């Protein structure tokens, strides 16, 4: 077949005259804020490393998806939330939960399937919730959290409570049909929701380029008139800056917005994924060049935080995580009678 002649490209692509959010600015954090971001990211990193270890020891079973490498995304975004706002995500959820203020031992004890776990040991890694902390899961079906999060936003608007829902999903979920059903309704009804695409480059073993006709995922809302912003998800300050812009847009009643957070997971998709679809060098290169925690550490040093102070933080976090792990290992499993509870709320 003859090749069609290349079309003459116009100099400038046509620009929409719709209002668009401003290009977000990198957040200017105070020293205290920067320290907090660092602590939060480090807590997630150490927590996940410990979870991986416990998995290897057989204390955690089933599927266990670690957030290592992606910490700056959730830390940057969730630091901008107020207590009116809600958070929902998929199954790579441990980090988001910790940032909602759920104690590490409650999460870790859920991972080990203990009665003291946040879901009484009935949910496991992928199914954790805390209504008190406005964390609505923890959902195991790829993409399900997108309409669910849109529903939380519907409730925020219905109740006129000023809240916004932060609905996270991955580059894999971005190809699910229900995501676009939710986009349509969210924009149609101007619902207060920030759709966060955590683009860690791989949907399990399939890279974005191999699965997505439009691989610039921030554009995925265009046909629904939802603006999108692409953000460096390896930089906590860039993430926070984007959150400021997105929340301002949504809180002004302009409807939903998409943040595509370009990030990277160091570990396999889940604990059982040998990650043969990418080279060790690729992972190492990201670790060396773009690690969000190392990045923040350099910022801290620049802000005059001493090596000793940083070391102290690290020790404190290690202690907290070890305590959570010890607790999760020692606290008892659920009573057998718990098998039959919480199926229904009412008695009929």
């Amino acid at each position: 077949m003859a090749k069609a002649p290349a079309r003459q490209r116009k100099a400038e692509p046509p620009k929409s005259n719709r209002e668009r959010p401003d290009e977000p600015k990198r957040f200017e954090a105070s020293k205290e804020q920067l320290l907090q971001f660092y602590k939060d990211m480090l807590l997630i990193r150490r927590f996940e490393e410990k979870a991986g270890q416990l998995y290897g020891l057989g204390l955690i079973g089933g599927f266990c998806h670690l957030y290592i490498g992606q910490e700056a995304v959730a830390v940057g975004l969730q630091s901008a939330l107020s207590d009116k706002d809600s958070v929902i995500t998929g199954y790579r959820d441990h980090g988001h939960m910790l940032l909602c203020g759920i104690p590490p031992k409650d999460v870790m004890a859920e991972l080990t399937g203990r009665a003291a776990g946040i879901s009484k040991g009935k949910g496991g890694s992928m199914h954790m919730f805390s209504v008190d902390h406005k964390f609505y899961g923890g959902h195991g079906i790829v993409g399900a959290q997108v309409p669910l999060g849109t529903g939380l936003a519907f409730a925020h608007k219905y109740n006129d409570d000023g809240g916004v829902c932060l609905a996270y999903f991955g580059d894999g979920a971005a190809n699910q049909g229900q995501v676009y059903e939710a986009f349509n309704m969210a924009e149609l009804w101007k619902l207060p929701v920030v759709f966060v695409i955590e683009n860690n480059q791989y949907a399990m073993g399939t890279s974005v380029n191999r699965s997505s006709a439009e691989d610039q995922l921030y554009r995925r809302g265009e046909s629904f008139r939802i603006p999108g912003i692409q953000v460096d998800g390896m930089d906590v300050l860039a993430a926070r800056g984007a959150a400021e812009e997105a929340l301002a847009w949504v809180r002004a009643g302009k409807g939903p917005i998409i943040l595509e957070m370009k990030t990277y997971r160091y570990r396999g998709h889940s604990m059982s994924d040998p990650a043969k679809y990418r080279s060790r060098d690729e992972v190492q290169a990201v670790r060396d060049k773009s690690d969000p925690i190392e990045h923040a550490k350099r910022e801290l040093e620049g802000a005059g935080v001493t090596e000793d102070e940083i070391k102290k933080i690290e020790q404190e976090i290690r202690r907290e995580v070890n305590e959570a792990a010890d607790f999760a290992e020692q606290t008892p499993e659920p009573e057998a009678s718990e098998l039959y509870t919480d199926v229904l709320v009412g008695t009929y």
Partner: protein
Amino acid sequence: MAIEIKMPALSPTMEEGSLAKWLVKEGDAVKSGDIMAEIETDKATMEFEAVDEGTIAKILVPEGTDGVKVGAVIAMLAEEGEDAASVSAPAAAASDAPAAKEEPAAPAASESPTPHKVETGARKMYDAASHDAETPDPEVPEGTEMVKMTVREALRDAMAEEMRADARVFVMGEEVAQYQGAYKVTQGLLEEFGDKRVVDTPITEYGFAGLGTGAAMGGLRPIVEFMTFNFAMQAIDHVINSAAKTNYMSGGQMRCPMVFRGPNGAASRVAAQHSQNYGPWYASVPGLIVIAPYDAQDCKGLLKAAIRSEDPVVFLENELMYGRTFEVPKIDDFVLPIGKARIMKPGKDVTLVSYSIGVGIALEAAEKLAGEGIDAEVLDLRTLRPLDKQSVLKSLAKTNRMVVVEEGWPTCSIASEIAAICMEEGFDDLDAPVLRVTNEDVPMPYAANLEKLMLIDSDKVVKAAKRVCYKD
């Protein structure tokens, strides 16, 4: 030769309608495609178009007439060259009005074809579904005043009452607001509650089922209407994975108090993709409440209970039943308990267990059995999950024989479940095997004769009942 214009059938189950408005008057010329009248059925208002050309010679049924039978001559059309003034009404035309019982005598000449009343399986079910309970519901206090109401009105009133009582309750779905409901079940709700609480959605079942579930997680009380449960297949992931399991997975912290409702089961001549009973599907899922009521009273009392429930409820209505009229107790705030079966007719020889439209067939069968000296008890399960085992076993202990009547497939059905319960927990009470009268184990065919073969009817029930009574 003048042409008779007859009352058209606008749906397979339509028997009569209202002539809401004439858009032509005597002496008007019409050509094919012109809208002549607006005809109202219990579902919708439809436009009635001319097929033939000519001049309207006589209007025989004035606008605003209710209860005009399908096939009644409503106007006469003078053909080209014919003198409109000389056209006379057919002999019996005057008696075509609602009061008339007889069909007009067919005039010899040029006649527009009379709409066919096709004998279908769905029509037989629809006809059977006119049977009232023969015994009062013990949940209704003795001496309560009863009012006549359609199933459709009962469902609407249940939603309206609960929406008045609780600001968290809202209804969403396709065509629920401006269109007033695809089957008019949400009629009038938009006017009373506004578009914040009566929400038209795009055609996006997976999306809005998820959105509704999220809203329930966020503290609201959604009623999610599926235009039919056939379309809920697109959304079943959220019904089961998101709504039903959340309370358990969260260790009881996060609830999903919501109702998924809409018509379920076979309708008339809509074939395989639009005719199936999802009762057994949903009833197999822990974490769901599944309700499939028969008459208007149960629709009202149980839908109100469903909306108030802290658990996700799948509420299975039946399209063929919407226009059926039953007596409903006139009680402020009439709420029925979920999970309780109801004896529709007491009897001593055999128990016919059913739910939804099957109850009408069971009642019709009981009537026929009475003629043959068999006194059947009819038990309406009403709730499929949790199933009222005790009432089933109690009735079995009384009659020692059981037939399950289910408008649905036989395999892995509610009927199978009832049979298992009787085996496991009522074995000593059984004087005969439990028999299942269900639809045939094939997709729903379109052809009228095949549809009839596919669906349950009272004769099949009578046969099974006689078999378990060893009287066949």
